[in-house]
Structure formats: C-alpha cells, structure tokens
C-alpha cells in the first residue's frame, strides 16, 4: 500500500472509530435513566455493540501503525479526536437520543452495505461482523422514530425539535475526510456521495411517514472533523477520567 493511501486509511479508521466511541458514551449516559427498564437495557446493548465496532476499527488501525486502541480512546485529547459533531451533542431527551441513533444507524447500515466489497480484506471482514448487528439497531431506532412521531402531540413536538437541531449536523457524516478520494479510488471505502443520496431517500421517507417535517433550512452543517463542539471536552473529561486516574491499571 502506498504511504499516502495508508495515511488516509489510518485517518478514516480513526474517524469511524471515534464516531462510535463518542456516540456509545452518549448512549451510556442513559444507563439507569432510561424511560423504562426494557429500553434502558436495550440502549445499553446497542451502545456496547457500537463500542465493539470502535474496537474493530481501532484494531484495524493498530495493524497499520501499531497504535494502542486504549491509548487512542482514553489518553487522546479533543484536538486529536476525529469524530463528527453530531455524536458530541448532549444526549437531550429520549426523542433526541433516538433520532440521533436512528440517523446514525441508517448511515452506518448503508455505509457497511457499500463497504462489504472493500478491496482491503481486513476491512471487508470487519464489515461482515458489524453489519448484522447494525441491521438490528436500525430496526429498533426506526421503530422508535415511528412511534414518537405518530404518538402524541408532545412526542411529535419533541422529535421534530430534535430533527430541526440535528439535520444539519447529520450531513457531516457524508463529508469526506482529507485524502478519502484516494481510498475510494482504490476501492477501499465507498464513495460517500451516492451513499448520501440513498440516506436522504430512506430518511426522508421514514421521517415523513412518522409525521415529521424536514427542516427547510438545514442550519449549521459542520465539515472538518478537526473542529469540535465545546461538548467534546466535557464528555472526554468524564469518559477518560478513570483511565487517566491510574494509567497503569490492567483491569477496573
């Protein structure tokens, strides 16, 4: 692999993993606070799966540059993170959390489907593992969007509010990272442009069927993953505190 392709792949794997880690941590904030025990457990399951996906992506990066996944997750500061801003936003209410998880799950499911035939074999193998779990996540969050959207005036209002806030942020999922075109040219990762079309088609249909209105003005649309919201600093402070407390610890 040429060195610029390798560098781009390392950066892409980092972005994929960082999205999963931060989204998972946001989801974990519901543990013990879910609207009902069953959903508390269900969301904990989903976010554990997302963490597992992050482990796979960091693992692929490790094969390329020898970096330690735990070091990346727990000892890197916000400037080093390459997550998108959508996953950084505070968890909000249940509607906010379910909508974000839905928009993300749909993106991830479509990305994985397209990445199945990656020319980079380790990536194609990881995709096979992740894809089956992601299909279930999507069913779950899709069901919630439908029910909140068609539920009561209050649940619809909250979901609409979440959509108005998140729609612009979600578009960042389809902004290529610097050098991504090299990976696309080599068939290592899918082109985000056609994926975005499919995502828009699916999400628009589902959101409208759920009784929601797509924002006419998408609002703020982040682009570079080198920039973050202020929320990333506080979430990392909490997420990394235990690991940084005793960096030598082998088990907690």
């Amino acid at each position, binding site marked *: 692999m040429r060195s610029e392709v390798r560098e781009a792949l390392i950066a892409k794997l980092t972005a994929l993993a960082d999205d999963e880690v931060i989204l998972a941590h946001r989801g974990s904030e519901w543990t013990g606070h879910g609207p009902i025990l*069953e959903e508390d457990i269900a969301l904990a399951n989903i976010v554990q799966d997302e963490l597992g996906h992050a482990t796979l992506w960091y693992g692929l990066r490790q094969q390329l540059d020898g970096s330690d996944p735990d070091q990346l997750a727990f000892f890197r500061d916000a400037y080093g993170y390459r997550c998108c801003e959508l996953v950084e936003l505070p968890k909000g209410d249940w509607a906010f959390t379910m909508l974000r998880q839905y928009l993300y799950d749909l993106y991830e499911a479509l990305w994985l489907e397209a990445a199945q035939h990656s020319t980079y074999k380790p990536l194609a193998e990881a995709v096979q593992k992740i894809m089956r*779990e992601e*299909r*279930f996540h999507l069913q779950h969050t899709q*069901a919630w969007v439908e*029910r909140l959207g068609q539920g009561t005036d209050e649940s619809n209002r909250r979901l609409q509010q979440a959509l108005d806030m998140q729609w612009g942020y979600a578009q960042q999922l389809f902004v290529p990272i610097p050098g991504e075109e090299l990976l696309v040219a080599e068939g290592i990762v899918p082109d985000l442009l056609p994926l975005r079309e499919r995502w828009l088609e699916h999400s628009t249909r589902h959101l409208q069927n759920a009784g929601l209105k797509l924002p006419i003005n998408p609002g703020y649309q982040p682009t570079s993953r080198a920039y973050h919201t202020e929320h990333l600093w506080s979430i990392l402070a909490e997420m990394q505190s235990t690991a940084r407390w005793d960096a030598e610890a082998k088990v907690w």
Partner: protein
Amino acid sequence: MDTQWPRWEVFKQDSPNKPHQAVGSVHAADPEHALLTARNIFARRPQAVSMWVVRAEDIYSWTQEEVAEGQMTKGESYQAQVGQYLVFRKTSHKRSMTFVDYVGEVEAATPEEALKKAQATFTDALALAWWIVPADRVYKSDPSPETIQSWFAPAKDKTYKQQQYYATVGSHISKHKVGRGVEDEE
C-alpha cells in the same frame, strides 16, 4: 390513568429442534416493540433462533391444582374464540430460568375446550401448569435467515464478565460445550 405499557410474555427457542420456552416478560407498547425489547433482554448473549411474544392477558393459564379441583372456567375475561390454540406445558420444578414449554396446537371453540383437548393429546408427562394461547395472539420474530443472522447470531461471539471474578472474561457457553443445549445454561 394507568401509564404502564402492557406486559408481554416472551418465548425463546434455543435451537431449531427445541421447543419455545417461556423465559420472562417485557413491557412494551405493541407487538413489534415487544419483540425488539425481548431480543435485547433475553437473547443478547444466550443462544436463540426464534422468539415469540404474547400479551399476558391473552394467556389462559391453569395450575395442576386448579385442574385437579375442576376449576375449568376462568371468569368473564375468558372469551370463546373458535380456532387454533397453542399449548404450553410445565413438566418440571427443576428449571429456574424457564416456565412452560411449547408442546403443540389444538383446535377448539373456547380456551377451556382447548385445555381439555390438550390434556387428552399431550399425555407423555404430568403437567404442573398449562398455558393456552389463541394462535392469532402470538407474534413471532421474522424467520428469515437475514433476521436470524442479525438478531441471534452475534450472541455467539460475545464475551462475558464472570460475576464471581469480574476481571475474568469468558466466551459463550456453546464454545465450551459443543452439541449440548439449554440444560447446560441452567
């Protein structure tokens, strides 16, 4: 106002040759939601190939004692409904993780008639309890290979933290005990 979602009993099938077994319950707003939460709660790690859910109020149950005392009718909520009934039966006190097992179907005009037919049909073991469920009240997980892959296959790759030794991570029981089934998990 009662803000509780209805309770659904969950039946899990561990492998294609085993019966669906009552494993517990979930609260959920509708059948699809009940299946989704049931999958999360009862099949994230344990082995499974299929799940059914039934609203608790759609289950007609009799204990061995009730049958012995001839308490065949169960009050007004038990409505006549001609059709197929699913029959579940408990035959052992040994199991702590499951209650009744699915044994088969009977055709009847009422749940009481279904029970009588069940008693006459499934005679191979003493019933400690019977559950009778109208067939149209049973909601089943999608049997397609795609759903089985997505809902149930990932469980086999998951690791466990052992309760007694929290730092110890183990793998799925099926990795250790090849060819043996649910009794091992209990």
